[in-house]
């Protein structure tokens, strides 16, 4: 470690705890309390990255989260690689491994730097201008090359092994930012008894006080006041939550805020039980925003060399981290605060070659103090350039209005264009910003939510203002949250000298503007010239300038660049700054990880998994499962050596020859009960229900109010006042919501109760010629004979001693029963029926065979044959409509002009002329084999299978005027040529239904 760069004693680092870390493979030493940025600076390393577009060597410019240049990747091992971290926020621990980004083969010799010479190619809007032709080249050539060359960090490729937590929190007062203003607010609110959350993005609470060496507050040094204040807050830990390392990244409606807490990244050996990060979703009654201000860079030619940084950042490195950022500094400023930096740096042992102040005069107390300390000050002087490559070697300065330019040797250039209040969160809260003409900054104006800004983020410039605004805001917030008004308090501050000033836009210089690069947005490599060019090319709104030049669009969201960009655009357009306007501040304030957003919702916990009561049996049988909504359903049951096709063919054949068992438990089930149950069913389904006898079932068709089919299912009448309604698997929740909607809001006079019973009933479908024989020996108290219990009937009784609702119904076209038993008995009853079934040679079949069997019979599946624009008439289901009913949901719409057009698409069957070709579901159906481009399709294939029973392929389709086309040959164009199909009725097997009624 180059000890000569450490100050004698100041700083909050622990000099008794040295540590080592690696950057680009090189070993360095630093101290506990250092960040990667301060640790590298202490070793004389300024070069930390390469710029995005031109690959120019870059050093850090700031000491905080606004850092645009020093983006690094940190490797914590085992796939834990995080790109694009700001070196200023990476806390060092022993053994930390970091690397630079965006350079190859090395940071010092990066071949991408050639882009700097080719920079005429990369002018504003270059994406839109350069890479337009030929069209395909964008996708195949330009984009991959540009992405590789102009990328930021690389994403990790391994699955993230860490875990992330999330929690909700409520508080009376949320204070964002723990600088002097935020601390004062938290203290005042806590003293009123309010529940307070105080969060700050930094590892230590204290904000600007952490680098404050001169001020005293209430008679004690600022850092002592900080300790005392934190101790007072910790003492109230039952009502006060302190959250360091916690970024408030978003301010949403109704005082709902998102906080991202970094829990373990700063630890060398974190407890594996700890989450890496934690998302806090906070609902606050009142909010105090105390997010400070950002120092602005100066826009001058070559203002981006390593060794050029913000003046106050250098002061922070010296005072807080005990690091001299250089040996000999030139300070370029337009604000008094840089003079404080000069005084502190001089005290820390840095030679101040000169202060070049853009202002004509600088006679405030701070400039006078600097002069008194023997620092050379030149006013009316601009910085006009810099020299050096991997580290700055000299500053060019000249008197404004003259062509004279002097080269001042130095290894550090500090710049200060003034301060920009951090109004991001206020703006996100939808508050209105106003432009303060005197200070030339945007500050919070009218509030949209329960919040107030205090300190530097509202444009206040002094410590005493920050503290007193904080005290008042904390007191006010607690009172508004319902607590007694606390005592008013005022801070006493001494030792601070007031600082004023500021400059916006590009620094004047005598160089050829077309040959120099004066950077506005460092991270996106946007120069003053780019912004002027954008305005010349017609971009008159700041939103357009932003998108055309990409200024302010990088991960730093323009924290250091927005105001300079705006001022340059305003000047070029000849407008006042407020007339050009400000771009929208968006969440997140700083980038947050996907891990934080996802929390526990990943892998097995991403979605709940629903399993039927018989899932274990199917799994033990080797079933392949498919996801249907959240359900796991048995797709097919392959025997050894069978693929899907073979297994399904066997399952279908045996169901038709003998019998099969099918797990239908996922069907939605709703119990409709009450004296008006039948009337309710009359209004919600197309069918008539009043005359349905107890013990009988009916196929029910449900429409939405627009007349389109939304669900279907078999409904059994259990008693006069009780219906057992089934719905599609995916439609269960939607149907119940639809029923509740009408019951609660349109038909509240009906006495009906609706209960979801989907998970209460296990359903075992037994289908096939032997179905009755299989269950006969198990069922008690029900006469199963065809005459006693005909097709479409329901009986209550017992099976193996367990209560059952036994339905006689079929979705296969075969004799069939559906055994409903309480879910807890599902697997036991399944096994009992299976044992009987095996005696008859029955098979267990899955959803794929079920689909084939129902398609052979032309039974529709809602959501497969239908898409939300299909009427009962389109499906040939007119028979399901109770014509005599005065009204039902959807009835009025069925006579709308569009719904009775003769050329609507209708359900038909398709037989491929080559019977072995299976069509593709979703494929278009056309009149001609090779229709010219622009021809509308007649419809599309909705279902297509190979039917083992019939020995050929079958398909269902929706085709315009389909029923009138039966017998016609149409075409299904595919990439390898059209497939000829003959239109037929949508039923392929047992057209008269004789197999059902046996």
């Amino acid at each position, binding site marked *: 470690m180059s000890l000569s760069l450490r100050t004698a004693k100041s700083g909050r680092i622990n000099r008794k705890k040295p540590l080592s870390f690696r950057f680009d493979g090189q070993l360095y030493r630093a101290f506990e309390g250092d960040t990667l940025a301060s640790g590298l600076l202490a070793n004389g390393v300024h070069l930390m990255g390469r710029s995005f577009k031109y690959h120019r060597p870059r050093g850090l410019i700031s000491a905080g989260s606004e850092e645009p240049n020093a983006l690094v990747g940190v490797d914590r091992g085992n796939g834990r690689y995080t790109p694009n971290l700001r070196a200023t926020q990476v806390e060092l621990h022993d053994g930390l491994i970091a690397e630079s980004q965006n350079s190859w083969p090395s940071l010092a010799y990066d071949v991408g730097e050639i882009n700097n010479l080719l920079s005429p190619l990369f002018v504003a809007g270059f994406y839109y201008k350069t890479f337009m032709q030929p069209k395909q080249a964008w996708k195949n050539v330009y984009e991959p090359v540009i992405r590789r060359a102009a990328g930021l960090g690389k994403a990790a490729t391994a699955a993230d092994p860490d875990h992330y937590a999330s929690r909700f929190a409520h508080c009376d007062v949320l204070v964002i930012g723990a600088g002097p203003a935020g601390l004062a607010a938290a203290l005042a609110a806590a003293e009123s008894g309010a529940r307070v959350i105080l969060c700050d993005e930094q590892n230590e609470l204290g904000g600007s006080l952490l680098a404050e060496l001169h001020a005293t507050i209430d008679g004690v040094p600022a850092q002592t006041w900080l300790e005392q204040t934190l101790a007072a807050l910790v003492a109230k830990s039952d009502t006060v939550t302190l959250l360091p390392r916690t970024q408030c990244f978003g301010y949403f409606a109704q005082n709902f805020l998102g906080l991202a807490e970094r829990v373990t990244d700063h630890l060398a050996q974190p407890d594996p039980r700890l989450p890496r990060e934690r998302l806090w*979703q906070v609902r606050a009654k009142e909010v105090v925003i105390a997010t400070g201000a950002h120092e602005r860079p100066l826009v001058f030619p070559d203002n981006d060399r390593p060794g050029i940084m913000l003046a106050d950042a250098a002061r922070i490195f010296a005072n807080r981290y005990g690091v001299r950022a250089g040996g000999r500094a030139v300070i370029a400023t337009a604000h008094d605060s840089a003079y404080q930096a000069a005084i502190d740096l001089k005290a820390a042992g840095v030679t101040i070659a000169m202060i070049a102040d853009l202002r004509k005069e600088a006679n405030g107390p701070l400039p006078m103090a600097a002069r008194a300390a023997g620092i050379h000050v030149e006013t009316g002087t601009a910085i006009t350039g810099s020299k050096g490559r991997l580290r700055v070697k000299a500053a060019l300065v000249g008197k404004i209005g003259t062509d004279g330019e002097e080269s001042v040797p130095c290894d550090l250039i500090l710049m200060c264009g003034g301060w920009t209040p951090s109004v991001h969160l206020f703006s996100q809260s939808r508050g209105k910003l106003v432009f303060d003409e005197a200070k030339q900054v945007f500050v919070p104006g009218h509030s949209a939510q329960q919040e107030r800004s205090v300190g530097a983020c509202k444009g206040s410039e002094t410590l005493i203002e920050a503290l007193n605004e904080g005290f008042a805001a904390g007191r006010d917030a607690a009172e508004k949250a319902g607590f007694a008004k606390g005592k008013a308090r005022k801070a006493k501050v001494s030792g601070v000298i007031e600082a004023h000033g500021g400059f916006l836009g590009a620094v004047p210089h005598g160089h050829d503007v077309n040959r120099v690069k004066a950077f506005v947005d460092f991270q996106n490599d946007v120069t003053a010239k780019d912004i002027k060019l954008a305005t010349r090319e017609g971009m008159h709104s700041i939103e357009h300038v932003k998108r055309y030049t990409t200024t302010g669009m990088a991960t730093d969201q323009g924290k250091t660049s927005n105001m300079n960009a705006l001022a340059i655009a305003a000047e070029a357009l000849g407008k006042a700054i407020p007339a050009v306007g400000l771009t929208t501040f968006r969440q997140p304030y700083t980038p947050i990880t996907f891990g934080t957003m996802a929390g526990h919702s990943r892998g097995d916990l991403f979605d709940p998994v629903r399993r039927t009561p018989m899932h274990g049996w199917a799994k033990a049988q080797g079933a392949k499962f498919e996801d249907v909504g959240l359900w796991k359903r048995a797709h097919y049951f392959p025997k050894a050596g069978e693929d899907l096709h073979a297994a399904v063919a066997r399952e279908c054949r045996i169901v038709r020859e003998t019998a099969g068992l099918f797990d239908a438990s996922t069907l939605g089930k709703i119990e409709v009960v009450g004296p008006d149950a039948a009337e309710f069913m009359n209004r919600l389904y197309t069918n008539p229900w009043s005359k349905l006898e107890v013990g009988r079932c009916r196929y029910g068709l449900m429409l939405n109010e627009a007349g389109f089919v939304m669900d279907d299912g078999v409904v059994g009448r259990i008693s006069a006042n009780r219906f057992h309604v089934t719905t599609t698997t995916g439609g269960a929740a939607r149907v119940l919501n639809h029923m509740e909607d009408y019951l609660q809001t349109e038909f509240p006079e009906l006495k009906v109760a609706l209960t979801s019973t989907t998970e209460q009933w296990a359903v075992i479908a037994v289908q096939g010629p032997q179905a009755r024989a299989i269950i006969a020996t198990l069922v008690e108290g029900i006469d199963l004979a065809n005459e006693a219990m005909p097709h479409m009937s329901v009986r209550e009784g017992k099976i193996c001693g367990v209560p059952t609702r036994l339905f006689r119904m079929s979705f296969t076209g075969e004799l069939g029963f559906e055994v409903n038993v309480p879910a807890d008995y599902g697997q036991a009853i399944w096994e009992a029926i299976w044992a009987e079934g095996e005696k008859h040679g029955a098979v267990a079949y899955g959803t794929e065979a079920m689909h084939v069997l129902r398609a052979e019979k032309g039974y529709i599946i809602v959501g497969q044959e239908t898409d939300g624009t299909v009427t009962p008439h389109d499906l040939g289901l007119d028979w399901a409509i109770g014509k005599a009913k005065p009204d039902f949901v959807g009835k009025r719409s069925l006579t709308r002009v569009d719904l009775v057009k003769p050329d609507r698409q209708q359900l038909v069957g398709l037989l491929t002329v080559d019977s072995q070709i299976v069509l593709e579901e979703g494929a278009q159906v056309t009149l001609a084999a090779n229709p010219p481009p622009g021809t509308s399709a007649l419809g599309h294939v909705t279902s297509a299978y190979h039917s083992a029973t019939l020995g050929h392929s079958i398909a269902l389709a929706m085709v315009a005027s389909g029923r009138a086309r039966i017998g016609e040959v149409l075409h299904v164009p595919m990439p390898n040529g059209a497939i000829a199909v003959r239109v037929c009725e949508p039923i392929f097997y047992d057209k008269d239904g004789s197999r059902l009624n046996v």
Partner: protein
Amino acid sequence: MLLIPCPHCGPRPEIEFRYAGEAHVARAADPGAVNDQDWAEYLYFRSNPKGIHFERWRHVSGCARFFNCVRDTVSDKILTTYPAGEKKPDLGTLMKEAGR
């Protein structure tokens, strides 16, 4: 995430609710008597205002009841909520209460 005051349960986070479209769009007592244009308006035409909106929500993961809500679509502020079937509240009175 909004904080929605269910008229039956009190304030609850938005994730417990499901939006259910514009409120006070009544279904005709005898839809058969409604002409095509009016029926199309009932089915498809909504006010979609920038500003005060009368809308329906269902507290689906709570009491499961549908209710009505008056929300400003610009600020997301909720002026009031009230049970389904109650009369539309007077907007002037609501605005006065909200201090606009």
